[in-house]
């Protein structure tokens, strides 16, 4: 029973991280139908930035929640700028070209960013400090959920609520929904599509930065390559849920997180990736548009 509970908490934690990254994939796809393969690298840069800022700010004397939130703030802002620049440099010049062109550009950016961080920072693993202060009220749950796991799930939940409010309630959120339904018509009603695309990249990158900060705390280490597998998994989660659908990305990420956790716990941790991708194949065979995706017909 305790194993089962542990696996549930582990699955929820993994699923939350995947969800934070998967949202960036699904939102960008929803707006410009591009799989942004460099998105995993933004997450990796988020972890690095959080690490660097926590070192600097820690040396300046910041501790506890202040350190966590200021390091998080800088990581989020820094990644937002990365996301914005990435779109302007690698995707915007290719808009209107065949869909393959920006896809190749995305893969190129992914490799570029990995190698850039490897050269500028280090090819080795870096230890990541434990930034999350003790949470007293968790003592009753000792052995079930750690403070880091709790923080990950809580931070993800808060991010989801914030994202939902942003998309439902603000003007730009409304414009994003309009563009994802019909970009041409959105432009004809006066929506500035460049702003909407930039905002989408910025928000996706901010969520990825939160994910990067949290995974650093969870894994106690980071390196230039963490974005690759995490990006792949998050992309899988987005496809599983129905790419382009925001609730779909979250559902897909949780399914993936839980199935990995259970596979690792009940079979062997060697099997967690196998189970994840078998699941992907199985669901796509039965529902090619993903769990929450709707079959769309291409307009001519």
């Amino acid at each position, binding site marked *: 029973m305790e194993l089962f509970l542990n696996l549930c908490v582990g699955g929820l934690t993994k699923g939350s991280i995947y969800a934070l990254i998967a949202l960036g994939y699904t939102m960008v796809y929803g707006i410009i139908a591009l799989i942004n393969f460099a998105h995993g690298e933004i997450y990796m840069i988020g972890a690095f930035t959080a690490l660097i800022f926590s070192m600097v700010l820690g040396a300046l004397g910041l501790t506890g929640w202040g350190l966590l939130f200021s390091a998080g703030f800088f990581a989020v802002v820094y990644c937002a700028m990365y996301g914005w620049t990435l779109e302007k440099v690698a995707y915007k010049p290719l808009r209107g070209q065949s869909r393959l062109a920006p896809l190749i550009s995305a893969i190129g950016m992914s490799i570029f960013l990995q190698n850039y961080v490897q050269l500028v920072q280090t090819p080795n693993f870096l230890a990541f400090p434990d930034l999350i202060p003790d949470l007293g009220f968790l003592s009753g749950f000792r052995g079930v959920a750690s403070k880091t796991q709790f923080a990950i799930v809580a931070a993800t939940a808060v991010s989801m609520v914030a994202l939902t409010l942003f998309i439902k309630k*603000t003007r730009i959120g409304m414009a994003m929904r309009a563009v994802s339904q019909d970009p041409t018509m959105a432009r004809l*009603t006066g929506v500035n599509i460049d702003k909407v695309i930039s905002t989408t990249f910025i928000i996706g990158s901010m969520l990825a930065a939160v994910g990067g900060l949290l995974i650093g705390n969870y894994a106690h280490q980071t390196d230039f390559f963490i974005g690759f597998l995490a990006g792949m998994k998050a992309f899988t989660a987005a496809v599983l849920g129905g790419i382009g659908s925001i609730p779909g990305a979250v559902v897909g990420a949780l399914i993936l997180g839980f199935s990995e956790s259970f596979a690792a716990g009940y079979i062997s941790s060697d099997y967690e990736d196998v189970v994840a991708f078998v699941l992907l194949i199985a669901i796509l065979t039965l529902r090619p548009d993903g769990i929450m995706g709707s079959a769309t017909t291409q307009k001519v």
Partner: protein
Amino acid sequence: MTDAVPRDPVLSTSGITMIFGGLTALSDVNFSVERGSITALIGPNGAGKTTFFNCLTGIYRPSRGTMVFSPEPGKSFGLKKLAPDRITWLGIARTFQNIRLFNNLTVLENVLIACHSRMKAGILGALLRDRRTRDEENAMAEFSYRLLARYGLGPSANHVAKNLPYGAQRRLEIVRALATRPSLLLLDEPAAGLNIAETRELDDLIKYIRANESLSILLIEHDMSLVMSVSDMVYVLDYGSLIASGPPDEIRRDPKVIKAYLGED
């Protein structure tokens, strides 16, 4: 063809030519819409009418020719190099033959989106929600509600657009276009798919718009009774070229027009 040049056109094009690969969809179209008028563009299927609209709204860029839009007397803008959202901002709005609403947005949101093109506050304002932005957003919401109420869509403001009946969707598409506050409204076959009663309502709606909003209307339509009833001026397009223009009564009797529609005997 009558060559009366309007004294104060809201829109005039000269030599508009649109070539797709080897196909000439529009060839040397000289066209104008008198300010405050309802002008109709008719012609058989495939004559290039919608292509012409797509050129005007920036979806296509014509291969040759110029398009000049004058939102108010004394002001004029060349449209050829402008992006669609910029053209909307200058004051041209349009509807589509196959209704293109934002289906998953509510009726109100469909109109709000269009209103927002006129807002001054930027992204920062939307995020920080300062007082000025909120005031402006509230004013937009009120404007949208009033517009919907005026066109009989008030009670369904919070319904999802795709759940409206067809006739109401058509009406909403026109209201959304009006919400961008255009000086020229382009209607692409607004009567397509409407039954006789709905077409009659549309006839009233177009006349109501003309009477109550200060704008000019350019209409593509197949329903001749509607065209004859509402328009001041009719242009006829066939195989990408204008073959006739004049008041509705004249066009109805023009042998070239009859031939284009019915074929030669």
